[in-house]
């Protein structure tokens, strides 16, 4: 009874937590009443432990506690200080002891609770006794050596003649000597903890030398699955484990970035280079149209936002596993349809206290700069644009007409001729040659520093284990003024209160402070990049006094130029500090009972809050306005508080040594509360105080706030069965209820199943010694999607404010804003997956292939409805989409000697197709920024680029007369294809002109180790996807009033100077729809990138031992070293409108950095 006592206390403690519904906790108190004491042989008791590098003695003590036994041994015999590792999950004590003792030439004998450990030469049959052979007819002496991969002798390796008890162990040099029977064909079995067991036929040799390979973890490793773990060999689903070792040297401020190219079927897109920004992640293509496409992120059982990757230090991550198919993700029910990324953070291990210190420091630079016109090129181009418009629009015009002769009306196509500023003269060759030139790109980008420090202390005993880690990242952005400071703290503790009862706590607070800049956005809104690329190269930075900011506005009025803002001021005069605090906390209680049962209750809390204080000074030039301008301030805060509680009961049993059962049932409840408030002020008397209190109260200070919440409850069950690890079966079901959906359709059920067949375990395959693993897998299941973005009440008909005023008296008004749909429900995702795992040569070559077909039904779709209803769209479950594809990954250990060379590579392809849409099947046309740019239509990939197809440039009037054109077209304008052949160019001639989804994505990492040196080269890329470079609306619009990329030098000038045949004429008043969305701006987004290159050196232990340092490694690392791409803008991965309907539209974003760092890891 005594071991149950802590429970009621714990329950009380937890009950005090006001966030958790009391009804869920009655369960915990119930334990006090149960008191099972079941008689059983100690050898049958299940053992669960995972200890690494502990002393033999510690290990045995642990087992004593766990199995309620007592070992008797002599320290000398068992070499009790030797360091061993052992992992067992629910294995019988007998199996565990065999595994531990046999390789050490030890045996054991059980008497009641006592287990006597003895040396092997007096062979005492263990429980699973090996049949005694008859005495050998004759023996011969065999000698040899056992070495590790590097050729070092391996002491203590067990060498046994197969099928007998005869054997020995290797000596300190790794040598052995053994008598073998002369008859038959004896086979030696070499085994050692941490190494792969090897069987070697003796033949006629008198010497057998063996090299043992370190145990390849691919098969024996544990894979994290939903609500539990599974051995890799028993996995029947498409689950990818991220090779954490390959992520180690990457100087990235967001851990998700490091996953790029590492997992087949997972696209990680760095679409934004802002320090700390979270890349977009998609598993197996786009599964949804209006609901989210991001996978579910689960950190230590806690469902969190993808943003969490920017708060986790990659050193703190133990493992990342990606559930890709429906059979593995269905256990997450309505949230799992876009795949699940399971992150497990590091926990303390018993044994010696470990101290690790990691630091890196380095710098970053922008990966690319664009080629823009210089002042002289711009002047020539701009003048031409003015003259073209003048000739086009004013009858009888001649380009030699002076400005004064040109109209004063809106047809004022004039260009600088020195009349306002003497220096500003495009006609005078001397002035032209002396035009000022500003390379604005050089002025906004910088070489920026990055440093990261982390200290990690872990250790404990078999009773309690802990880990504490603290990290600090300091990263300056490559755009001046931007920076990130991140502080992370993690601590966890696991306590075995009794052998049956374990509790644990994990707390992960983090805090970050970001100095933000307005990198993105239109110059009119003071976007830095857009302004730097658009401002004329001679646009003034300062007014005549040399300190007040000026801008292109100062030159603009007489010539109808736009008032492009000042890119430098856009950095310095916009202050925005963002502070975010995040607290992930979870605690669990785990109780094992009745041998095979385990109960686990987990409570998670996730708090995320941010605060943004922004201020734009009165010194800032605005669109068309020179300073002093009206200063504005902003204070914004958001808070997300969510909790999750789940209970899981598992039953693990092996029957007759061949039937392995693993059953799980559980429930889960979640709740999320969101709150937001925003205050703005726009009446500051001066720039002294930037907070809102300095803005005059009343009419120019505004305040808004809102709140929303959602909740879900779920029940789930899973049944795992395998026969001799040969035939594998997995069935699961989850039932989910969510507040997001209509009251009539609130619950959904998500079943899934999978089968596996390890052919390599079949007897008929045993003969093929090269083949070490072969497994066929097939799975099918249903999962759901409830990610509705910010809309927490999509089923409800809501009202919104629409006020009015009567004679200056405000009249508060309300009006319907959405239509109701009480039947709104889940989006359903059906997925078939067939996979093959195959390993050769002891899995030195390991290959995984998967085929999948994923059908999303009942798409949550905001469909267009006739707007005469009063609404333009309504949310419905309509439509169907398919994603199908192949994924291949291969891991090879090419060289395993003193020089080690490993390769991992993956390639995957996904094909997306819309199968059904809305009631009438009408395509969905989507806007991004300015105009319709994308279309989603049946039979094509979602969000395909949509526009006119350019087939050339009209060269002359005859050309114009012979082909349909826009009514305003002139020679030199773009020739679009008359797709519907109706003799007119109309909106109906728009067609699909590209798609953002790549044909395939790939990644490859090669690592080399030689005498303490390690080198890792990771490349990664995509092929066949396109980008709609909509930024060219700005820097290739040929209007002559903003700077342009150098492609405009190849523009059409005349029939005899036709340029590149694609770029139309310069014209200040565009004709012929030249700048409509068209194939001219659709570019190949394929790229190949050297993602990371790192070179490390492990200092020899001999140097370190005096300093009591266990290990020290120095390394150099380069991230995003080089990218091969034809894409004209900064970053081919960009996508400003990160919705599936408008993917791949580039409207300018914070570019990526390449980073060079020097790092050091020290372990004490």
């Amino acid at each position, binding site marked *: 009874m005594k071991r149950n006592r802590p429970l009621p206390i714990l329950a009380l403690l937890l009950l005090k937590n006001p966030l958790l519904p009391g009804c869920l906790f009655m369960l915990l108190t119930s334990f006090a009443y149960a008191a099972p004491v079941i008689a059983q042989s100690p050898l049958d008791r299940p053992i669960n432990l995972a200890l690494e590098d502990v002393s033999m003695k510690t290990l045995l003590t642990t087992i004593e506690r766990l199995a309620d036994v007592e070992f008797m041994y002599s320290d000398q015999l068992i070499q009790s200080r030797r360091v061993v590792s052992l992992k067992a999950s629910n294995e019988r004590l007998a199996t565990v002891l065999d595994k531990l003792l046999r390789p050490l030439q030890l045996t054991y004998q059980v008497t009641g609770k006592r287990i006597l450990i003895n040396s092997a030469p007096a062979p005492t049959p263990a429980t699973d006794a090996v049949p005694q052979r008859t005495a050998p007819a004759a023996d011969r002496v065999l000698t040899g050596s056992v070495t590790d991969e590097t050729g070092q002798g391996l002491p203590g390796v067990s060498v046994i003649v197969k099928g007998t008890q005869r054997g020995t162990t290797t000596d300190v040099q790794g040598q052995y000597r053994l008598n073998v029977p002369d008859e038959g064909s004896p086979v030696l079995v070499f085994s050692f903890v941490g190494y792969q067991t090897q069987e070697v036929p003796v033949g006629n040799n008198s010497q057998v030398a063996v090299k043992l390979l370190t145990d390849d973890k691919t098969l024996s490793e544990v894979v994290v699955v939903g609500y539990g773990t599974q051995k890799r060999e028993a996995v029947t689903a498409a689950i990818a484990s991220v090779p954490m070792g390959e992520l180690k040297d990457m100087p990235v401020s967001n851990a998700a970035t490091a996953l790029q190219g590492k997992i087949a079927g997972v696209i990680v897109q760095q679409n934004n280079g802002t320090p700390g920004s979270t890349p977009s992640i998609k598993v197996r293509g786009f599964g949804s149209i209006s609901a989210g496409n991001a996978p579910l992120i689960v950190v230590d059982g806690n469902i969190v936002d993808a943003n969490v990757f920017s708060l986790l230090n990659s050193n703190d991550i133990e493992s990342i596993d990606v559930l890709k198919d429906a059979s593995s993700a269905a256990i997450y029910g309505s949230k799992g349809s876009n795949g699940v990324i399971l992150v497990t953070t590091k926990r303390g291990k018993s044994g010696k206290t470990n101290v690790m210190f990691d630091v890196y420091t380095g710098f970053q630079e922008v990966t690319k700069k664009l080629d823009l016109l210089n002042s002289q090129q711009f002047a020539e181009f701009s003048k031409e644009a003015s003259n073209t418009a003048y000739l086009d629009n004013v009858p009888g015009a001649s380009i030699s007409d002076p400005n004064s002769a040109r109209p004063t009306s809106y047809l004022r196509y004039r260009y600088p001729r020195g009349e306002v500023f003497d220096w500003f003269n495009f006609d005078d060759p001397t002035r032209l040659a002396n035009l000022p030139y500003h390379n604005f790109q050089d002025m906004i980008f910088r070489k920026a520093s990055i440093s990261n420090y982390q200290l990690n202390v872990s250790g404990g005993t078999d009773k309690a284990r802990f880990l504490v880690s603290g990290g600090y990242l300091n990263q300056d952005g490559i755009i001046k003024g931007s920076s990130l400071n991140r502080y992370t703290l993690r601590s966890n503790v696991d306590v075995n209160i009794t052998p049956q009862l374990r509790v644990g706590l994990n707390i992960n607070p983090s805090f970050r402070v970001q100095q933000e800049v307005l990198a993105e956005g239109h110059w009119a809104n003071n976007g830095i990049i857009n302004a730097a690329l658009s401002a004329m190269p001679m646009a003034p930075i300062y007014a005549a006094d040399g300190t007040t900011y000026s801008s292109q506005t100062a030159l603009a009025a007489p010539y109808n130029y736009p008032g492009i803002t000042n890119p430098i001021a856009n950095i310095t005069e916009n202050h925005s500090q963002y502070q975010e605090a995040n607290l992930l906390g979870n605690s669990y209680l785990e109780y094992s009972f009745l041998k095979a049962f385990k109960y686990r209750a987990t409570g998670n809390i996730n708090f995320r809050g941010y605060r943004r204080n922004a201020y734009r000074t009165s010194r800032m030039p605005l669109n068309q306005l020179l300073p002093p301008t009206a200063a504005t301030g902003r204070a914004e805060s958001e808070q997300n508080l969510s909790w999750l509680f789940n209970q899981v009961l598992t039953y693990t049993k092996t029957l007759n040594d061949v039937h392995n059962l693993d059953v799980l049932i559980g429930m889960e409840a979640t709740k999320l509360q969101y709150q937001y408030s925003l205050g703005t002020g726009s009446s500051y008397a001066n720039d002294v105080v930037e907070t809102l209190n300095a803005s005059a109260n009343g009419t120019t200070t*505004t305040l808004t706030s809102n709140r929303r919440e959602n909740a879900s409850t779920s029940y789930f069950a899973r049944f795992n069965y395998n026969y001799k690890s040969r035939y594998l079966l997995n069935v699961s079901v989850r039932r989910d209820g969510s507040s997001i959906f209509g009251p009539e359709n609130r619950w959904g059920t998500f079943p899934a199943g999978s089968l596996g067949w390890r052919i390599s375990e079949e007897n008929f395959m045993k003969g093929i010694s090269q083949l070490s693993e072969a497994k066929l897998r097939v799975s099918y299941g249903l999962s759901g999607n409830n990610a509705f973005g910010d809309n927490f009440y999509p089923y409800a008909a809501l009202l919104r404010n629409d006020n009015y005023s009567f004679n200056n008296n405000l009249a508060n008004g309300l009006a319907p804003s959405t239509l109701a749909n009480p039947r709104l429900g889940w989006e359903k995702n059906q997925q078939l997956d067939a996979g093959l795992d195959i390993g050769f040569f002891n899995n030195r070559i390991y290959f995984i292939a998967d085929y999948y077909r994923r059908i999303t039904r009942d798409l949550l779709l905001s469909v267009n409805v006739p707007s005469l209803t009063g609404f333009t769209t309504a949310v419905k479950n309509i439509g169907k989409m398919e994603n199908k594809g192949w994924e291949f990954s291969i891991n090879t250990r090419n060289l395993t000697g003193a020089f080690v060379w490993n390769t991992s590579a993956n390639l995957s392809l996904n094909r997306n197709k819309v199968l059904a849409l809305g009631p009438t099947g009408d395509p969905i046309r989507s806007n991004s920024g300015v105009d319709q740019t994308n279309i989603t239509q049946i039979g094509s990939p979602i969000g395909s680029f949509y526009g006119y197809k350019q087939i050339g440039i009209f060269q002359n009037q005859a050309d114009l007369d012979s082909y349909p054109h826009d009514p305003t077209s002139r020679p030199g304008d773009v020739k679009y294809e008359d797709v519907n052949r109706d003799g007119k160019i109309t909106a109906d001639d728009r067609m699909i002109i590209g798609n953002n989804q790549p044909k395939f994505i790939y990644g490859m990492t090669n690592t080399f180790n030689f005498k303490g040196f390690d080198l890792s080269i990771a490349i990664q890329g995509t092929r066949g996807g396109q980008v709609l470079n909509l930024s060219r609306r700005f820097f290739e619009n040929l209007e002559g009033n903003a700077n342009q990329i150098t492609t405009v030098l190849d523009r059409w000038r005349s029939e005899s100077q036709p340029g590149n045949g694609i770029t139309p004429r310069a014209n200040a008043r565009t004709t012929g*729809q030249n700048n409509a969305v068209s194939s001219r701006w659709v570019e190949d987004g394929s790229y190949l990138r050297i993602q990371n290159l790192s070179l490390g050196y492990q200092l020899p232990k001999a140097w370190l031992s005096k300093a009591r340092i266990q290990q020290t490694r120095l390394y150099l690392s380069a991230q995003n070293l080089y990218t091969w791409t034809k894409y004209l803008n900064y970053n081919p991965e960009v996508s400003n409108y990160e919705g599936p309907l408008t993917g791949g539209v580039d409207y300018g974003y914070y570019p990526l950095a390449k980073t060079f760092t020097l790092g050091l890891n020290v372990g004490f």
Partner: protein
Amino acid sequence: MKAPKRYISLVLSLMLSACSQKFLDLNPISAGATDTFYKTADDIRNALNGAYGSLQAGGVFGNSYVFGDVASDNTVPPASGSVTDQDEFDRFYIRTTNPFLSGRWNDSYAAIARFNTILDKVGGVTMDETLKGRYVAEVKFLRALVYFNLVRTFGDVPLVLKPITNPEEGYAYSRTPKAEVYAQIEKDLSEAQTVLPVSYPASDLGRVTVGAAKALLGKVYLTEKKYPETVAKLKEVIDLGVYDILPNYADVFRVNNKNNKESVFDVQYKSGGSNEGNSWPNSFAPENSGNAVIAFGGGGNNQPTVDLINAYEPGDKRKDASLATSYVNASGQTIPYNFVKKYYDTPATNGDNGNNIPVIRYADVLLMYAEALNEVGYQANGEAFTYLNRIRNRAGLPSKTATDIPDQPAFRLAMEQERRVEFAFEGQRWYDLVRTDRAIPVLNGKKSQIRLVNPLTENNLVVPIPQSQIDINRNVIQQNPGY
């Protein structure tokens, strides 16, 4: 083995005992829900305010200058190159995907849905019956006003008179013949005018009055060429005796002189950071003018054409009150630029101006009355001349007599000229030209001055139905001819 059984059943039963359903029944916190609204008099008042609010939408009155002035010979869009949305209206090559089309259609029907919902729900609300009757009449006026704009813009339009809660119903509505739409407009206004008050207390000025209903009905009759009815109806407005024209034309538009005696119905705006401001004064000021013309500068929209500038007679005070042809910038340079200055305020933030958008002014009532009288029968120096000359005299122009305007056709031309300059930038010109069958001859006569891409034809008198609405219900909603 009783213990294990009890153990497991206990665990299972507790794990599966669900919390109450209420856990999942979460209602919106920061937004009201339609199904609990429209229950009380307060709700209806809020809904009615929201109905008035829909007048400010871009497609209803917010962008009305594009339809009324840019499309005529009065104004042109800014010179900026890549955006041709307004240029298409200006020069008559309107594409079916033009956003101003979908804006007008969508915003108008969103407004109509609000009106219909109130009319549908108000019956079940217990409240003062007189007030209820007035609310209904206000809504009917608003519905008539929006349909009047729709039918003049698109021709036949779907006539939706009750709220649609299931979008599937929306697919059944086809375009209703113009005549039926006009009949409904007349019905709504006729009903409204019997209930509405003559005026409101100061705090409610801007609501629909009987004068507004009658004036709009008069305008509808005039558009339908029902001249005797027009005369009768507008006479009723005049006879109300509550309206007058202000002595000084510029005063009519001064922001601190809103809802004056000349105002019959305006779309109301309010400055002061409540998001109820009018952006027109900023929108119409010259680009890159800094703070020289108006604080926060301008967008260069709705620029007066040289043709309009020249249309003002010498000495017409309305010219300087309505437009300017240059300004002096901060550096002291005189920048030639034609721009609208009829709407001017001193905004504290960009676009937050208090100017109302005039819908019907008393001057309009008088000129329509004169026009209708002339159509009923030209009378040398008759009543029609009186009203025409009242307007002219206020502008500082001499009276016209039968010598200047000898016959009915001449009087029509005089009206056309007078209305053009009187109502410049008030969204009237294009509809006046269409109403009087003058759009084609007048605009084609200035083809090169106003840079028409193609000569106007009968097809251009209505704009195309938005492509999006055809795409969505192709078999039911058909495009206007020529598009």
